[in-house]
């Protein structure tokens, strides 16, 4: 059962990283346009250019 000493903190840390990731995505506005995001995922890549890339 000594393995718990590693596994439990590891599991908690992973959970915490997931939560931080969620909070980051929320803060950077990734939930502002869910309909659009659904389509952007399958849209063709924009032609490479040094400008015009959004964000």
């Amino acid at each position, binding site marked *: *059962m000594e393995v*718990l000493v590693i596994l*439990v903190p590891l*599991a*908690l840390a992973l*959970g915490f990283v*997931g*939560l931080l990731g*969620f*909070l980051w995505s*929320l803060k950077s506005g990734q*939930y*502002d*346009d*869910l*309909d*659009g995001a659904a*389509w*952007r995922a*399958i*849209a*063709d890549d*924009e032609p490479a*250019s040094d*400008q*015009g*890339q*959004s*964000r």
Partner: protein
Amino acid sequence: MHADIDFSHYLKSTGAGFVHLDLAVEGINCAGCMAKIERNLSTIPDVTSARVNLTDSRLALEWKAGALDPALFVSRLAELGYKAYPFERDDAETLEARRAQGLLRRLGVAAFAAMNVMMLSIPVWSGNVSDMLPEQRDFFHWLSALIVLPAAAYSAQPFFSSALSALRARGVNMDVPISIGIVLALATSVIETINHAEHAYFDAAVMLIAFLLAGRYLDQNMRRRTRAFAGNLAALKAETATKFVSPTEIKTVPAAAIRPGDIVLLRPGERCAVDGNVIEGRSEVDQSLITGETLPAMVTPGSAVFAGTLVRSGTLRVRASAASGGTLLDEISRLLDHALQARSRYLRLAERASRLYAPVVHATALLTMLGWLAWGASFHDSIVTAIAVLIITCPCALGLAIPAVQTVASGALFGSGVLLNSGDAIERIAEIDRVIFDKTGTLTLPELDVANLADIPDDVVRLAGRLALSSRHPVAAAVARYAGAASPLPDIQEEPGQGVHGLHDGRPIRLGRPSFCGADDLANEILCRDPEASVVAFSHGESRYAFAVRQRLRPDAAEVVAGLVRMGVAVEIVSGDREPAVRLASETLGVHEWRAEVSPVDKIDRIEELVRQGCKVLMVGDGLNDAPALAAAHASMSPVTATHMSQAVADAVFLGERLAPVLAAVKVSRKALRLMRQNLWLAIVYNVLAVPIAIAGLVTPLIAAAAMSGSSVIVMLNALRARARETI
């Protein structure tokens, strides 16, 4: 045509030499539009960002300050086939958006906590039946506490604060039993953990919070979406005003940029976008949107004009004022305050349910404890059992029963063109048994319409339409619109207050007042038949025609009235307009009860009289004179063309030319209320089944968790039934 609008009001500097502009864009409805717009605008030099928000139909632009004229974007979008207007988020929308985001953040925290705690709980549940050491169990319980306590303290705040404010006001709402349940579950679990006991309820508590937050977030998100849509509508109306920037120089600015004290110019054919007082000029004005009166009124220096007033003959200078001045407006504000106070006393279904629910549950828990004590159980065991009763009855399903239906129903209403303003609108609209319609602008369309097109040869209509294009008079504009005219005739002069005239095919051609065209007899004939029509005459050489221009009933008004009557809802017309006009409309629609020339006070009196008879009234109106009645009625709706004040007090706003959304609102709301009641019953049935287990002291954390999620899912699924489309 919008190139001359001054955009400076909407530009925001983002620092570092960039400016930001938000545009509401009409017609973005697919991914293709999104890609097309973003690619096209991104190719403009100096544009650093062009991003479409598909959910809200908006476009956010950023470019180097001073490098570009914002009007360029609007014209570029017009080339692509989209109408775009600058807009500004209003305070209400910003607030809704911030709330939705706050709830999502709390939901995220609660959900992550629930997942991690579940990972710790499952070994405990399975360990309890096998060979887990008590020390290991305690360790897992302490870990759960470490995760859940901070997570609950953060994510359950909306429930705690709402419960506290209800208690402070000496009331009970649904959040009171919820908060008590959460706090007790957590406190017991901590005490049990300290005492090395077998059961802790950390998982159930945090799962409950996550489920409830999910329901609230969906509700809030629907509300935010409606607000955003309403904001777009306001922007797409593109209300502009012509402002004097110096005594001699004018500029077209968005109406939102007009401040009290500014002087604006109103020309014939324009609709006033601000409230104010006339300081110069005389004109006939059409105030039908405001007072319901279709006969034009005369304004002179000193008269008050309101947003929505249509200027018919002369040019006016108006000083904008901050909601004061006019006696009509003062009186309406006073009536409005009074009526809104009465409405705030309405008790929502959820509040009524929790008023019954909380005492029953808390009494049951107390009796359980006393019962076990009397039976000879130890004090500790009795208290733990009593708390288990509170945890299992903690109204997870009850807390979701109403918001879940509300979310789904407001989504369905959104689809049929109804935007809800207030949270309890669905409940109140569902309860109504009588509809009072205003006539002008509500049963009729706000735009003028040519009534006797069938009597006039097509080529004459087309010619008259082309001639009418040269006039700014709204009645002539209606003829032009109906004729579908696009190319004006050359060399036409306007005779102020009379009409337009010129030469066509070598013969004189005229359009205007009947006397101007020598068609008085034709005009009188029309006025005898239809006393509220405005007549515009047309002559070409010797031939003379008269167009009867009037407000037309909404195309489906009669069907909607019949539909309401079929549903057992009484229909009545109460209008500020003159008697013949109201009688004609009532006869056409088959409405037997109607009142004409009703003042705002009398409208309220009529509603109060009906309330005394036990009726629940849905008021549908648009004018400024309807605003107090809209607030006084049990529920209210306004068309989207209504004056600002009416839209603000109405429970719901409906879109489009048709009246069908009113019928849809009543149908969907009734169905939703039925589902809300059903959901409450489901929650009660669940409690009736679960409480005996809790009273018997048999509830384990596993049962608590399963019962809670099970009941929530059932209630959610039942709510989804509100989505089934009504056939109207």
